[in-house]
């Protein structure tokens, strides 16, 4: 996977992970992939719902030792 940008949103509480992801995504080109790292459990459902609502594609997500990683392709 070719990742264009990585956003570290660890330790940020809702709504900041989505706010930051949205801001970062605005600076990217369609088709580019953003990797987002979070620790807030609420961000799991919210980032997926936000991506869907904004026309982006959630390619993959995983959890490792309390850190959630998301790969979102800009739509």
């Amino acid at each position, binding site marked *: 996977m070719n990742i264009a940008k990585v956003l570290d949103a660890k330790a940020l*509480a809702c*709504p900041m992970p*989505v*706010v930051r992801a949205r801001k970062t995504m605005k600076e990217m080109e369609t088709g580019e992939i953003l990797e987002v790292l979070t620790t807030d459990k*609420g961000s799991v*459902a919210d980032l997926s*719902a936000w991506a869907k*609502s*904004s026309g982006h594609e959630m390619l993959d997500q995983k959890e490792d030792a309390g850190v959630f990683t998301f790969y979102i392709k800009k739509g």
Partner: protein
Amino acid sequence: MTVTAMTAGELAKKVIAKESFFILDVRNEDAFEDWKVEGENIQYMNVPYFDLLDGVEDVLDQIPTDKDVVVICAKEGSSIFVAEMLSEEGRNVHYLQVGMKAWSEHLEPVKVGDLKDGGAIYQFVRIGKGCLSYMVVSDGEAAVIDATRMTDVFMNYANELGVTITNVLDTHLHADHISGGRKIAEAVNGVYWLPPKDATEVVFEYEPLEDGRTISVGNTKIDIQALYSPGHTIGSTSFIVDDAYLLSGDILFIDSIGRPDLAGLAEDWVGDLRETLYRRYRELAEDLMVLPAHFMMIEELNADGSVAEKLGTLFAKNHGLNIEDEAEFREMVTGNLPPQPNAYQEIRQTNMGKVVPDEETQREMEIGPNRCAVR
């Protein structure tokens, strides 16, 4: 204009008073569909906060100015964010402090009635999740029944009343919420009672709560009589308090009955459920006041916020007690079950003492409605 925090307690009082107000719930749609603040005169709007990041202009004309507006999210962060945007547009709004997390944990104590020899019985209404706990108080002592994991609330309440908790009981092994019973019993050095048939896998000491067993509270004789009443679980036990109150656990509710499937044995237990509701309960006095361990709908709350109804009234009005045909009854309680409560298997394991999740995990496990009934 202003943004004001509203506590879960303040919101509970609005719901109990059946006030008319407006909720802007900014969680995502799945979360809102699954579980929300319920009330008889609440007007709702659900727009996820991430759809409002560009501003609230699009929704402004749908938000009333003539009633209280409460913005709600999971933990409060997003609701403050949105409330501030509304405030910048000239609105006075509230947000729910600590969000649905606080709503899930709030307990509202309500006195249900006095006992014959002095003393009283209190109900703790967990309004956000529909769980009901009880405290029977007499002559300086208290018994706590079906306590939730917010154990401080019970212990502080006993302190305020100037009584000592001596007995702690659970009507059954719960699957929808984590019991605080064992923790309270340990803290006050009291006795923790569990029905033995629900406790075959528990990893801690308990006192077996068997049919016919009598527990006294205080020197005055306020008896709690155990009545074996299986069906929701194989061990489910009801209590008759002071010959006046029937604590029915998760067997009989106000407008529904217990579901038999949360331990995976619906087909086996449906016969027990039928036997309890249509035989054992029929032998009891009809003027017993039924005090269940749950409510399903906010409409089941009385005007003072309590959940209680005479057994005779339930025999007349509760649909689940009025299905003559046994096959039809069987079909109703096994064929048409609602989704199971969130994390119910992990919750059962926790209540057996087999796993010990941290507090944050326990909180997450309990998110959502209780779903212990069938209608």
